[in-house]
């Protein structure tokens, strides 16, 4: 069981409030991702849950019982650190066994559990090696193994993939997702990478300056961003956010349109007209960076290949149902319909 509740949790370092106040419900078995730009307080929030930092006020409940003042080791949580935090002087076996030894389990149980975890994580052949002799991905798996054997109520991941190269990151992302499918244990995962958030999460928590901007499933955030910040943060390439006359025409302070939703035409005309700057051909997609007259730079994404060159004129049309409208306070204006 691993339901976690944060109740008006605040954290201040000295006089500086890093987390002004967070309420959050995490259901048992959920994969929750905390995402936000660096310095938004997502790691601090995770460390508060872990017990590595004291909360300034508020309460943290794990499975209904108050864990606010409980020592980290007693919270039945396991953490995978950004740097993996493996013990460099211990073999892989001893790294994974360490929490079990600390818990005073007998040798046979330890062996069984470590070998079980090693099998799941493809580490069986590496048990006698030191962390220094492993690749980044293997180290990551050792760190996960060390977490698994404790059979925790929840796993905490602190930007676990940020030290891996791009290809490996995609692999590990899948492995962690699969792990979650098979273990069905609560996972809280911190990242600054919205792609990781979108691909892995059941529920995304978007944080900014210590506040929760929006909580929702990936598609909810994508389709119905609650405010300008979430709109700009979720989705790649970023949503085009336009202010001024174009926005006023739609009765908003800011309007947003995702690049993939813009209709692009090279001849027939459209709502906006502009000159193509850089064109990025990805094969599967083509990104157009267009300088729209009276609006400024707008990015458009077209599926497949598109024969278009720097300096060409294009017309862009935002379909009204895909348009996001935001008020002067940055909050989304929901259609009356």
């Amino acid at each position, binding site marked *: 069981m691993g339901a976690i509740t944060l109740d008006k949790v605040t954290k201040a370092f000295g006089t500086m409030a890093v987390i002004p106040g967070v309420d959050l419900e995490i259901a048992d078995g959920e994969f929750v991702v905390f995402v936000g730009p660096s310095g938004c307080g997502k790691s601090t929030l995770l460390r508060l849950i872990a017990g*590595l930092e004291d909360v300034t006020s508020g309460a943290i409940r794990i499975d209904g019982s108050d864990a606010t003042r409980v020592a980290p080791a007693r919270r039945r949580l396991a953490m995978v650190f950004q740097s993996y935090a493996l*013990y460099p002087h211990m073999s892989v076996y001893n790294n994974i066994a*360490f929490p079990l030894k600390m818990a005073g389990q007998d040798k046979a149980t330890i062996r069984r559990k470590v070998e079980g975890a090693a099998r799941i994580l493809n580490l069986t052949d590496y048990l006698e090696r030191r962390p220094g002799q492993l690749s980044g991905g293997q180290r990551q798996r050792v760190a996960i193994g060390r977490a698994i054997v404790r059979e925790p109520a929840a796993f905490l991941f602190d930007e676990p993939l940020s030290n891996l190269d791009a290809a490996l990151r995609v692999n590990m992302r899948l492995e962690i997702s699969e792990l979650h499918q098979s273990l069905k244990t609560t996972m809280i995962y911190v990242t600054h990478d919205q792609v990781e958030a979108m691909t892995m999460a059941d529920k995304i928590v978007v944080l900014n300056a210590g506040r929760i901007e929006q909580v929702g499933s990936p598609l909810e955030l994508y389709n119905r961003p609650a405010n300008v910040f979430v709109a700009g943060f979720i989705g790649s390439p970023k949503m085009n956010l336009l202010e001024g006359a174009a926005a006023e025409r739609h009765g908003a302070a800011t309007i947003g349109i995702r690049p993939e939703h813009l209709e692009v035409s090279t001849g027939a005309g459209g709502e906006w007209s502009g000159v193509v700057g850089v064109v990025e051909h990805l094969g599967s997609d083509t990104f157009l960076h267009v300088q729209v007259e009276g609006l400024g730079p707008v990015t458009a994404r077209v599926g497949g290949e598109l024969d278009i060159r720097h300096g060409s004129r294009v017309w862009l049309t935002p379909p009204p149902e895909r348009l996001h409208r935001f008020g002067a306070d940055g909050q989304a204006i929901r259609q009356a319909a």
Partner: protein
Amino acid sequence: MARAVTRRRKLAFTLVGWTIGLTLFFPILWAILTSFKSEGEAIASPPSFLFFHWTLENYAEVQARSDYLLYALNSVVISLGSTGLGLLVAIPAAWSMAFAPSKRTKDILMWMLSTKMLPPVGVLVPIYLLFRDFGLLDTRGGLVAVLMLMNLPIIVWMLYTYFKEIPGEILEAARMDGATLAKEIVHVLAPMAVPGIASTVLLNIILAWNEAFWTLNLTASDAAPLSAFIASYSSPEGLFWAKLSAASTLAIAPILVMGWFSQKQLVRGLTFGAVK
């Protein structure tokens, strides 16, 4: 990266390098050579460099005439004792400052450093009088205490810079894994910090072994370490150069070897981490 170095250039540098190296080392070499000469050959002019009658009698004489081993033992006790005691106090302190720093940590470190800046001669009088009044003059215990206190800032600083390099996340991982503070230090921190602790120990043994202000002023005979014992050769025993050389060779040899092994770490310790 690497580019071919011409053989001529390399040869030239080899020549210059070895000449200067040997010149700087020469006084030590000369003392070692002289220690194997008879007293007559030791003061002979022109001096003989290698072709003299090699003898070990000076080493035997030094022990027989002045109980060399007592002084050596004093040196060992004083340098090991002060280093060991220092570690005992410094490891917890360095742990605190490296892994649970507070707003005042930096000030405390700076203040510790500033105690090291106090010239010993500035407190010579009170320390001497206190030692006299408490019967500590010429005792090993007294000297161990003074040298421990004198080098404590260096020990704390060195350990601190080494501990700082151990990622805090590893200790946090241990904490999450259920390790108590004691287990965290014994199973995780200490094994990881072994190289750092070892070089701290080495540097401190070197500093304590070579200390020659307090040892000269606070000891006479019973607790005098080698640095004070050698000083007794300044007169009139100083006339016996071969014996002086034998005593000197014995006194510097162990520390020289230690110094060679710890040269890299030495820089960090002696500059309080300012140069690595």
